[in-house]
Every structure is written in structure tokens, then in C-alpha cells.
């Protein structure tokens, strides 16, 4: 047990080290810090007896009605920014981080250690996921505390939503890992992942698309693609629902996306085990 734990922890720590050696992660963390500073210093919310008195941004008072609605709206804007822009930055940064492991001259040494290939890949995957999760949680928990202190509202939906953001990143990271194992290319990994991120909002509108398509088979293709690929837009909608304290109609997008992630990661590991370097 212990003999396997030391290498896995070392792999995770190494991923953090490599991430911190890259500017892109500092950029990400910097953006998060700037946003937090904005919330602390620029936005002033005066609450009187549970109702909003004024909210001031850049010294200008804004007309508002209810404090809960305002906080939820702001939180969902931050969550969505994190969900889309944060995801894009994370994909960019991680593609390089994953591809780096397969560099000739580096992979041989890693493989020569008494650690199974599956663990080597999982260690990197986990390390990368944790780096990104740390950033997302930093911004989310930080802003959650700021909102809580300023308004006295400590609703958990916002925190919960960040776990879904991390989850979706984990699925995209599985794609990056698979592409990395197959082609050792950060650029291809970014292209494929963005391809998925672009296609899924389109597929989400499949009712509309199906009306436009005349052939039966083409409608079937759209349906199959919708169910197979990760549902990033549907989960974006779920995140909004969570923050706004609304009911979620279907969890299918979540579990089917999880399934996709597991299959892709397993494929990546299997191929990695068989490859010659």
C-alpha cells in the first residue's frame, strides 16, 4: 500500500510543480485574485435588516430590489465565467502539461521506475485535476465568503455548482489524456477538446436541428452524438439552476457525461499500457 502511495503522491506533487512553473496557471490564479479583489473593494453592499439598502459599484449606487436575487445573479455570472473562460484556460494549460509527460527522453525514465503505467497516468491526471480544482475552489470559496460576509447569505448552491465545473473539467481532461497518449500533441488535444465544447451547445438544440434535417439517418446521428458526447451546455444550465435555487429537471446530462469521461480515461490508460516509447 505505502509503496504505491509514495509514487502517486510524488506524481501529483510533480504536476503541481510543473504547473506553477508555467505562466498560464499564474495568469489564471491572477484573474481569480483580481476578481476577488473587485468583490471586496469595489462592490459595496449595504444591507439593512435583511433587505437591501444600496449596492454601490465604482462608487455609483445601483437601483435594486432584493438582495437574494442580486447575489444569485452575480454568483451565476461568476460561475458561468469560470465555467467557460476558466475551462478554456484550464484546457490550454493542461494540454501542455499532459503532453509534456510523453516527451521522448522523459517518458523512458518515468517508465523505468517500478510504478505501473496505469498509476503513472492516473497520478498525472489526478495532479492536473487538483491544480485546476484548486483554482476554481479558490475563486468560488473566496467569493462565497465575501458574499456571505457582505450580505449574510450563505446559500450552498454556489459552492455545489463549482464541483460540477470541476467535474466537467475532469471529463475534458480525460479527452486531453487520450489524445495525448495517441498523438503526444498539445495542439491536437486542444483542438479536439474545443471541438467538443463547440459542438455540444449545438447538439443541445437538437430539437431545432432535427426539424431542419430531412433524412432519418442524419437525425439519428445527431441524437446519438448528443447522448454520447459530454453535455457541457446542459450542465451549464444545471449549474445555473443550482445557484438560483431552482429545481433540476434531469440529471441525465451529468451521469452520461461521467460515463463518457470514464470510458475515455480507460481507453487512454489501456492504450498507454500497450504503447512502445
Amino acid at each position, binding site marked *: 500500500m505505502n509503496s504505491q502511495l509514495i509514487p502517486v503522491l510524488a506524481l501529483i506533487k510533480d504536476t503541481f*510543480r510543473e504547473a506553477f*512553473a508555467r505562466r498560464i496557471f499564474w495568469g489564471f490564479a491572477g484573474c481569480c485574485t483580481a476578481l476577488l479583489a473587485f468583490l471586496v473593494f469595489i462592490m459595496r453592499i449595504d444591507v439593512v435588516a435583511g433587505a437591501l439598502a444600496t449596492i454601490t459599484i465604482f462608487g455609483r449606487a445601483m437601483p435594486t430590489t432584493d438582495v437574494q436575487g442580486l447575489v444569485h445573479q452575480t454568483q451565476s455570472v461568476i460561475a458561468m465565467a469560470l465555467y467557460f473562460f476558466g475551462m478554456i484556460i484550464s484546457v490550454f494549460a493542461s494540454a501542455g502539461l499532459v503532453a509534456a509527460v510523453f516527451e521522448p527522453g*522523459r517518458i*523512458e*525514465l518515468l517508465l523505468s*521506475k517500478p510504478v505501473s503505467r496505469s498509476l503513472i497516468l492516473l497520478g498525472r491526471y489526478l495532479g492536473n485535476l487538483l491544480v485546476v480544482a484548486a483554482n476554481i475552489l479558490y475563486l468560488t470559496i473566496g467569493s462565497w465568503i465575501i458574499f456571505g460576509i457582505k450580505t449574510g447569505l450563505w446559500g450552498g448552491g454556489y459552492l455545489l455548482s463549482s464541483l460540477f465545473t470541476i467535474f466537467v473539467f475532469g471529463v475534458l481532461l480525460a479527452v486531453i489524456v487520450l489524445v495525448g497518449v495517441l498523438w503526444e500533441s498539445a495542439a491536437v488535444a486542444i483542438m479536439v477538446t474545443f471541438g467538443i465544447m463547440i459542438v455540444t451547445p449545438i447538439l443541445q438544440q437538437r430539437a431545432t436541428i432535427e426539424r431542419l434535417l430531412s433524412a432519418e439517418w442524419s437525425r439519428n446521428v445527431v441524437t446519438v452524438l448528443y447522448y454520447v458526447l459530454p453535455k457541457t451546455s446542459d450542465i451549464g444550465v444545471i449549474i445555473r439552476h443550482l445557484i438560483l435555487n431552482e429545481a433540476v429537471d434531469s440529471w441525465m446530462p451529468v451521469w452520461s457525461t461521467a460515463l463518457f469521461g470514464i470510458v475515455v480515461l480507460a481507453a487512454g490508460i489501456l492504450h498507454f499500457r500497450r504503447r512502445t516509447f
Partner: protein
Amino acid sequence: MPAYAIETENLTKVFRSRWPRRELTAVDNISIRVPVGSTYGLLGPNGAGKTTFVKMLLSAAHPTAGRAMVFDRDSREPAARAPIGYLPENHRFPTYLTGWDMLDFYGALSGMGAAERKRRIPDLLTQVGLDERAHQLRLGKYSKGMLQRVGLAQALMHAPKLLVLDEPSDGVDPVGRRQIRDVLHALEQKGVTIFLNSHLLAEVELFCREVAIIQKGKLALSGTVLELTSGSGYRLEISGATEQMETELRSRARSAGAANGMLQLLFGTREEANQALDLARANGCEVETFGRTRSTLEEVFMKTVEG
């Protein structure tokens, strides 16, 4: 206790590419045995398949056929790699790590605990000739020679029983080579098996007791260095020969030459050499040297590779 550190049976690696359709047998049916405690050199020109062979020992490349055993365990088991220290060729160590961090990382991958790593790192770095400053310097700022040293330290981190070095003196200056050789000699004394890949004859000749020469993936020759280079003739060097005497001696020798006022003669058998020696002494010549010649490993190598 296994008798062999490395044992391969018909080890073969075929690289196939689909487009353009091509097949290359990089390692072709190689069976060798490396006894525990020996110093073994795998010698061959560039592209002979040495690196591919080593990668199969470490399971970085999977054999197409045959198998490799390390201390009697199949190299595909992760545990088989535990007693191996490896210095790859053309390595690219993570540039963001310092020398210290690098040893810490790879030591942990070998399953070493934190306290043990911390104890061993400074000793090892110093042993391979890296000073205090280098311990905390990022590898991105290391010179080629320093990288080679830190790579060696890394290979030694978990006190391996078998050391596999792929072109270890690549990019290292003569002083560094000497230092590396000293480190290796000390390990040899401790009973560590050392397997060395090289295209440099001098390196192998200076260090290894056994060699295998491979060419185009095939095992061309193997044995101890002494066996391979042993007796090919006798050499006689004399001075003070008259012109007539010189002509006579040259006609008896297998080959002859002159350098620094001395006549150098090579004879195929001991008998011929002794007769020539008697003749020369009887005619007032001075004998400078007389002895048995050994072919250099280089001659053996060139003969194998070209012939």
C-alpha cells in the same frame, strides 16, 4: 540469488509504420546473459539497436518476440524494475526541477521514503561532482555535463543492484568522464552490475570486462574483452640494423614499419619471432621491445562491423 542480472531470450523488436508501409527490425533475436556483478558493455554503431534493447529491459518498449528477464523476473512486471538504476540516452529531465528536487522526485517513484531521500540526496550530488550551488539550481540552467552527472545521481538514488547506462559519457568532458568512471568503479567494487551502452570503444574498453557487439540489430560477437582481443601475434622493435639486415628482417616479418629510427616488426608465430630476434642480436642490433600483441577492441570492432 539469481546468477544473471540480465537474461534475454530471442529478444526481438520490430518497428512497423503503417504509412508509408515499412518494417524495421531494430533488435533481432538477441540472447545474452549478464552475470551478477559483471561490467558489461553493449557496443555497436549508431542505429544498431542498443537503445531499443535497453528500453525493452525497462519495459519502455514492448518486445515483438522473446523476453527479457532482470534478476529472474520478467521485465514487464513493475517490480522487476525496482533494482534497476537507469540513465537514458538523450534525456530531457524536467527543467523546472532543481537537482535536489529531481532526485527527490525520482527517488519517491522508486518508493523511497522522505527521510531516506533527504539523507541520500546531498551525498549523491556531491559524489557525482555537483557543488552546493548546483543542488538548488534548476535543471534548465544545467550544462550538458551537469545534466549527465545529475542523471547518474538519479540512477543511483535507490542504491540499485543493476545500473543501466545509455551512452553515459555523452557530452561530458574528459575530467568528468574520469570522475564518472571512478564512481562506477566504486560501485563495481560493491558488487553492482553495470550494463553500459556505447558507441565509444574507448569507454567500453576502459571499463567493461565483457562486451557484446551488435550490428543492425543482430548479435555479432560477445565475450570477455580479454578473449576478444587476445593474441594475434608478436611485436619486435630494434635499433641499429644495417640496411642489409633490415631487408632480411623485413622479408621474414608479416608486416614491418619504421618510426623514430626504430624498426618495428610483426610476426605471426612465436617461433618466427624468436628466430628473428636471434638473428638481430647476432648481427649487433639492439632490442628495444619484444612482446605479444593484442588487437585493440577497435580492431575487433571494425573487423566485426565491416567484415
